[in-house]
């Protein structure tokens, strides 16, 4: 259906007058982006996520309410805005999704297979990870993004993420920077933010997770990175791996200070 929609769009445009002469593409697409954000159904998913956070699950039949997201067990307020960060109990830097997996396998004693069997959901049934993420992220609205930057491992994660951002590989020799490295560039008609610069990435890190109108799904930052690498024609990144967390750490540190304004609504 989506494919059909897009095919139709190309034909319709072909018949129209020159678009560039008529309208400011950047201004109008930003207006669309703003309007879809105003009429966002993301809150529906936050409510479901809250229910899952409180749902007793796993062999121990406990909820995630005792999960320490970095601000103490059970504290969800402002927790997302302070991730990624170093967690001593796991001795590694974790983003929200990685930390949730950790709590599922420790606090809830669920097997890693069980916790990771359905990381990405669909429009009819979002995944547990997606719903939990939008709920927890929503609890940081208005809080400036402030990932950990003091611990050696937090600094190493930033540096690794920064290097990975520019690292070209895959069938098409792409790095993140291939598309997100230069200002005022587009893929098709979509403008691309420069993610290596604070002004380009601040609004981005402050709006994930997001509801995507193109497939009516809520998606997390781990998914965003995963799907970028898919389109970069790389192999598949492992969910919650050091590389993916490092990229999130790099982007979040670069965009730090922006008050969290998500869960967002995007194309």
């Amino acid at each position, binding site marked *: 259906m989506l494919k059909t929609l897009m095919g139709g769009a190309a034909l319709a445009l072909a018949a129209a007058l*020159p678009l560039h002469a008529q309208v400011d593409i950047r201004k109008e697409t930003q207006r669309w982006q703003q309007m879809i954000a105003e009429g966002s159904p993301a809150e529906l998913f936050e409510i479901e996520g809250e229910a899952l956070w409180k749902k007793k699950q796993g062999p121990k039949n406990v909820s995630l309410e005792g999960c320490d997201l970095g601000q103490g067990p059970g504290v969800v307020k402002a927790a997302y805005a302070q991730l990624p960060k170093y967690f001593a109990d796991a001795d590694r830097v974790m983003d929200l999704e990685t930390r949730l997996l950790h709590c599922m396998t420790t606090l809830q004693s669920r097997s890693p297979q069980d916790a990771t069997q359905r990381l990405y959901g669909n429009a009819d049934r979002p995944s547990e990870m997606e719903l939990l993420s939008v709920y927890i992220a929503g609890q940081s609205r208005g809080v400036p993004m402030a990932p950990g930057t003091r611990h050696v491992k937090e600094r190493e994660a930033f540096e690794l993420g920064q290097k990975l951002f520019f690292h070209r590989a895959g069938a098409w020799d792409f790095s993140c920077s291939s598309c997100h490295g230069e200002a005022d560039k*587009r*893929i098709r008609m979509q403008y691309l933010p420069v993610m*290596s610069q604070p002004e380009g990435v601040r609004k981005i890190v402050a709006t994930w997770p997001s509801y995507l109108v193109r497939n009516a799904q809520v998606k997390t930052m781990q998914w965003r990175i995963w799907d970028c690498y898919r*389109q970069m024609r790389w*192999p598949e*990144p492992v969910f919650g791996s050091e590389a993916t967390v490092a990229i999130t750490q790099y982007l979040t540190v670069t965009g730090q200070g922006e008050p969290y304004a998500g869960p967002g609504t995007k194309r």
Partner: protein
Amino acid sequence: MTKNFLLLAGTAVLVAGCAAPLPVGERPKIAASDLDQLVAVSKRDFKARGIAGMDRLELDAAMRACNLHNDNPPREVSQPLEEQILKSIPFPQGSLLGDWKRGQRLAQSGQGMTWSDKPNIANGGSCYNCHQLSPQEESFGTLGTSLRNFGKIRGTSEAIQRYTYGKIYNSKAYNLCSQMPRMGHSKTLNEQQIKDLTAYLLDPNSPVNK
């Protein structure tokens, strides 16, 4: 090499007191050891899926040089590599101009080569993702240069046909660190498809040149 790096990462300690600001907004310098680390990390943290195998993480001489020099290697590094790559392009005999109409469909299609694509689907050229071509297609990217009137400006001489075919087959022959995917080298497109795209760019009847 991989083991070594992993061990090192495991011995980190907490920073005491105030730490130097992180190099936000900068492009890091990549030493050979960094490159080894990045390859090791990618091989550890990525996995093969569908048609996207782990071989895609291996760096050949060209990509090694580009990654080491932030896509701007000195001439003495890039020139011999470019010459070598140009020699490796299997130019077909005869005319390199295929069917521009088929080429147009290829230019429009962005499908293929991802881990979610089936092995035997018809890959596209993804041209419009980054380039302006025909004036009738308004939804074009700007990461690459505009190719509007490409053939009208250059003509259709044998030399131009060879350059166009070669650039699509392996862009690195002409600019080592070009951001354009090596469409033939990566087996994204076959000989006929590249000929069709060459025609789309050069044929006087193609909308690109109208």
